[in-house]
């Protein structure tokens, strides 16, 4: 067997050598494999165990339902309602394009929406439902439900959405919610907020976002790699948002809104004893429900381009000259600094002149009002009385006296977006205008003109303090305990009464400018005012927020409280371009007061 060269024993020995080498290699490689598995299974076990857990347990948030908002009488103002959205799970759908074409016959989709869907489809994992359309109408839900079998992969999903029950009259108080923007989301707590959450954008919704939003619950879902749910468990139930009860009286709010008729402007009614805001209207309002799911371009265009600026919350952002409504405060300042008293009179000859200056500061009444005391100076709104008084007070004392009333400062009202306004002073003018203060500017400050920029909410806060004779109850919209404070200056009861008497005379005296709103049922104290529109054009600090109209007619102002002896309501009305406070604004104030004070008397007769 074999060739002559064959040496069977050598051959066998070489083979066995080769086998021994192979055995060694086998042993080494097996040892390496065992080492590898030991490394993965023993040394790195906890890491991979965690990865495996992460794989199978997905934690989802259960959205907390947003806190409801009620008026002071428990009437629901902001609700959460179930609505439906259309979802598409690409994995379960067949021909998506064809189905979408069919679907558009039932549920219209714009070209923009469609291209967004197509974009999302490229990035969305196929097992993850994609939102096709939010907020389907009832008809759309019904039409889809009937033909759902034709649309595999498409489904409707219920979700809660905000709904405002009195969207227009409450629009500026409650504000609205909208989908959280990327920037907002980045700033929020990621545990509480998801990228598809709603957040308050304006008003109460924005200011009380933290209370209203609630805390989401955690739902643990055991799933497989295909996204199929094997089991679900609630690890942490959601904590719903806290309900809020407003100080607003819906009936009064509606009456206030209606009292404006065709006028635009702002009205605020407060309870001076508590600081509670009973009504706060910025007219016109807007349908706040439009904003919740992303307002349509056309609607938004209309709201932003309307000359009436319905989105502008005049009550907290509108800056106005207080005009003659500042006079009661000036009179009080004069009394406080003992420049005038109840017996003091001043002769109005129709104009006032600073010593050595030619410029005449006029009365509104040609020829003047003759000899007037404090009460009559308010009743007839005698300008020269206040030119002279302001000149004697000087701008520093005027500023220092008015400041504690809150003029030119944020009131801290609990809605977002309040503007500060301006209470003029030497310091302010130097800082913001880099100019010295002129005596003539003090003179016109006496009748609330010049650099004043005051918001209606500031007027309301000041009036509440004034009507409560120095008691400061911070204004607020959501019911909560507030700390009552007092004006820092000691104003005597007698001085308070004189100032109040002046405002009572405005409405009740034969010569009062507001006598048209006199009531037999209760004593109303009031003061009219005119806010010059043209004067503001030189303002640049508040130019943006300032509601500069095209028309040059002045704004009509009226402040009032009633019953004068024991005030239950204080009202500020700004009727834009109403020209005369007593004519345009006073009747609105009267309607508001009536709506509030007559209500309890009407109830027993029902």
């Amino acid at each position, binding site marked *: 067997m*074999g*060739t002559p*060269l*064959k*040496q069977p024993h*050598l*051959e*066998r020995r*070489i*083979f*066995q050598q*080769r*086998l021994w080498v*192979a*055995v060694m290699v*086998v042993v080494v*490689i*097996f040892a390496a*494999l*065992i080492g*590898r*598995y*030991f490394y*993965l*299974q*023993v040394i*790195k*076990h906890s*890491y*991979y*165990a965690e*990865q*495996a857990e992460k*794989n*199978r347990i997905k934690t989802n948030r259960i959205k907390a339902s947003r806190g409801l908002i009620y008026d002071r009488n428990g009437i629901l103002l902001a609700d959460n309602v179930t609505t439906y959205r259309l979802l598409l799970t690409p994995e379960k759908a067949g021909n998506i394009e064809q189905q979408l074409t069919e679907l558009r016959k039932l549920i219209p989709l714009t070209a923009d929406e469609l291209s967004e869907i197509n974009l999302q489809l490229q990035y969305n994992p196929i097992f993850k439902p994609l939102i096709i359309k939010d907020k389907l109408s009832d008809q759309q839900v019904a039409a889809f439900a009937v033909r759902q079998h034709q649309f595999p992969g498409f489904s409707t999903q219920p979700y809660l959405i905000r709904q405002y029950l009195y969207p227009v009259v409450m629009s500026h108080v409650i504000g609205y919610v909208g989908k959280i923007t990327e920037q907002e989301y980045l700033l929020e707590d990621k545990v509480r907020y998801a990228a598809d959450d709603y957040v308050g954008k304006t008003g109460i919704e924005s200011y009380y976002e933290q209370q209203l939003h609630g805390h989401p619950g955690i739902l643990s879902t*055991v*799933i*497989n*790699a*295909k996204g199929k749910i*094997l089991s679900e468990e609630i690890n942490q139930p959601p904590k719903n948002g806290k309900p809020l009860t407003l100080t607003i009286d819906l009936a009064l709010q509606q009456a206030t809104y209606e009292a404006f008729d065709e006028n635009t402007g702002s009205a605020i009614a407060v309870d001076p004893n508590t600081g509670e805001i009973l009504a706060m209207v910025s007219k016109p309002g807007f349908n706040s429900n439009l904003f919740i799911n992303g307002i349509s371009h056309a609607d938004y265009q209309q709201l932003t381009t309307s000359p009436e600026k319905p989105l502008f919350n005049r009550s907290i952002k509108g800056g106005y000259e207080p005009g003659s409504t500042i006079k009661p405060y000036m009179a009080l300042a004069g009394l406080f600094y003992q420049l005038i008293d109840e017996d003091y009179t001043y002769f109005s000859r129709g104009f006032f002149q600073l010593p050595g200056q030619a410029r005449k500061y006029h009365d509104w009444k040609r020829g003047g009002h003759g000899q007037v005391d404090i009460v009559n100076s308010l009743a007839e709104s005698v300008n020269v009385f206040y030119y002279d008084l302001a000149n004697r007070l000087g701008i520093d004392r005027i500023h220092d006296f008015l400041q504690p009333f809150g003029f030119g400062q944020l009131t801290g009202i609990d809605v977002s977006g309040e503007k500060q306004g301006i209470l003029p002073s030497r310091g302010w003018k130097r800082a913001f205008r880099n100019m010295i203060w002129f005596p003539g500017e003090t003179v016109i400050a006496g009748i609330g003109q010049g650099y004043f920029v005051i918001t209606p909410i500031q007027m309301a806060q000041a009036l509440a303090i004034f009507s409560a004779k120095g008691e400061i109850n911070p204004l607020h919209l959501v019911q909560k305990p507030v700390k009552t404070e007092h004006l820092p200056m000691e104003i005597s009861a007698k001085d308070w009464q004189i100032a109040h008497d002046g405002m009572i005379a405005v409405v009740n005296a034969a010569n009062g400018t507001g006598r048209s709103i006199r009531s037999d049922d209760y004593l109303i104290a009031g003061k009219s005012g005119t806010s010059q529109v043209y004067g503001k054009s030189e303002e640049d600090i508040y130019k943006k927020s300032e509601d500069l109209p095209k028309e040059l007619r002045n704004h009509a102002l009226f402040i009032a409280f009633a019953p004068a002896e024991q005030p239950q309501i204080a009202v500020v009305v700004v009727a834009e371009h109403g020209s005369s406070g007593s004519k345009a604004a006073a009747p609105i104030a009267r309607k508001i007061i009536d709506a509030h004070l007559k209500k309890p008397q009407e109830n027993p007769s029902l």
Partner: protein
Amino acid sequence: MKQTRLAFPDPILSSLLVLLLAGGLVVLYSAGGWVLVERQLIRIILGLTGFFVITQIRPERFEQFTPYLFVITLLMLVAVLLVGVTVKGAQRWLDVGISIQPSELGKITLPMMVAWLFRHSPIPPRWPSLLAAMTVIALVAGLIYQQPDLGTAILIAVSGLFVIYLAGLSWRLIIGMSGLALLSLPLLWYFLHDYQKHRVLTFLNPESDPLNRGWNIIQSKIAIGSGGFSGKGWTEGTQTQLDFLPEHSTDFILSVLSEEFGFLGVLLLFTLYFCIIMRCLYIAYNAKNTYNRLLCGALSLIFFVYVVINAGMISGLLPVVGVPLPLVSYGGTSILTLLLSFGIITAVHKHKKLIQQ
């Protein structure tokens, strides 16, 4: 004499194999349920029958029939390229009543042929037989590569090279050829298909593409690692049961075992494989003639290579090449081929015993 020959084949190897097959079925039940176990069991019975039948054959017959078997293999490999069934872009199957994979046949017949070429050649082998062996290897590997099935082509080529190595090729030549092979690796890259390039790239950095190509290996490592020392328990492996682990009844069945039976299970399995390989090498060591020695040695070593590639691949040590875990992974042809090759090894052992008797 006839009675003895029909007796139970090598009890050590047989019991090790049966133990491994039974254990494989237990894991397969967890990975794929009773349906797969039933089908696999049929294949195992078929394979064991083949194993038993082959065991009865006298080893001289293998030597005798080697050239014919090899020619048949070549013809089938050519046929597969001409009239083969295309599955997943590769022509690997030949449909002749039943589907057969000629490359599986090649796993046995190529080492047989190379051993046959060296059966009379001196030690160390001379150039003519070396060249003949290289030609035969290149022919079979080339045909399989054309299907295309690079993985199998390489593995079959390696089984042939094992024969050459065992035949006593001088170390100098071995080292020289290995160096040449290493140098030609960049050239190989040029011949790779895109999916193969991706596999290699994914192996080098699985996290680069965690959702697609890297997914398999990441999930497999999670399955293995999360199994820990003693495992999550039979049918309790979340990676497997929740379908995170891909192909868990075929290529990734060792991940299932690792997850559910832990490091202890892996150790037991490796021990079984180690014992099987050692037993086979022992048989080869004691075989009486060159042909038997070379064939048994090469078949044992290529079995070892399958184990290493699969275990290395699913644990992230080697690129994913689609080699099943021998005798455990679900799938018929590979079990059949492997049991037949063990049948050959057992036959060699029996023959040796008979001679001794």
